[in-house]
């Protein structure tokens, strides 16, 4: 497993945890969807995620979309809120 796989699995894990805490994953899986995808896309997604079942893969992809991390976007919007002389004192 290389760093890319590790990072992907971490993202999926964190997305699921965030959605779970928000209650989004409560209740029954009562919606069925059918999609057509390229073999290579499916193969690469399996490799990156470590997931083998199609259902798990689709759920992981949806979780990543639904729980997007916006910390970085928030941080770049904070420009100017710290004084120029702020120092953590390391």
């Amino acid at each position, binding site marked *: 497993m290389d760093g890319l796989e590790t990072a992907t699995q971490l993202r999926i894990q964190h997305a699921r945890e965030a959605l779970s*805490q928000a209650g989004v994953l409560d209740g029954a899986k009562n919606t069925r969807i059918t999609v057509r995808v390229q073999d290579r896309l499916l193969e690469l997604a399996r490799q990156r995620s470590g997931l083998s079942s199609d259902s798990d893969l689709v759920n992981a992809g949806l979780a990543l979309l639904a729980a997007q991390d916006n910390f970085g976007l928030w941080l770049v919007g*904070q420009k100017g*809120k*710290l004084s120029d002389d702020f120092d*953590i004192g390391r």
Partner: protein
Amino acid sequence: MDPTVVRSTETLLLDTTVYIDGAKPLGLPPGIVALLASHPVRHSALCIGELAFGYGSLDPGHPATTRNRALIADLLGRVEMTNVVALSAAGWAKAGSLAGALSRMQGFAHDRRRALLIDAALFVTAQEAGLTLVSGNISDMDLLLQVGGEAKLLLYDVGPPVSAGSAASP
């Protein structure tokens, strides 16, 4: 490593410099801003500690303390604990070994040695978790990259992004 070539699938690990530079008046270089806006972020427990230390050490009598405390408190409150990455015991051992050897070879004073240990721990955290480390600490990270093994690093100066690296130790 140029920020524009960081893959969309990469997850970033931020050095303490990124949080601070991002919120200072000058801000971060445009390439780093674009990267942060488009990639998922993880946080090191070390950096959280450093930011909290900075919060606690602010002089109550300084005119900017109220605004600085407000920003740091807001920032720490937004860090989801599920997005925090901690270093393993083996990672700490590697970081200590790296920092100790580099400090000796560079002839660093005691204060600088302790700072290098934190930088080495962050460097190894990124390696362990397979994350791309973003840092404005060019000098120490460059040293670590020379002897610490392969790592995904994106270094910046407060001007345009300056350097780079994904490299193996000799």
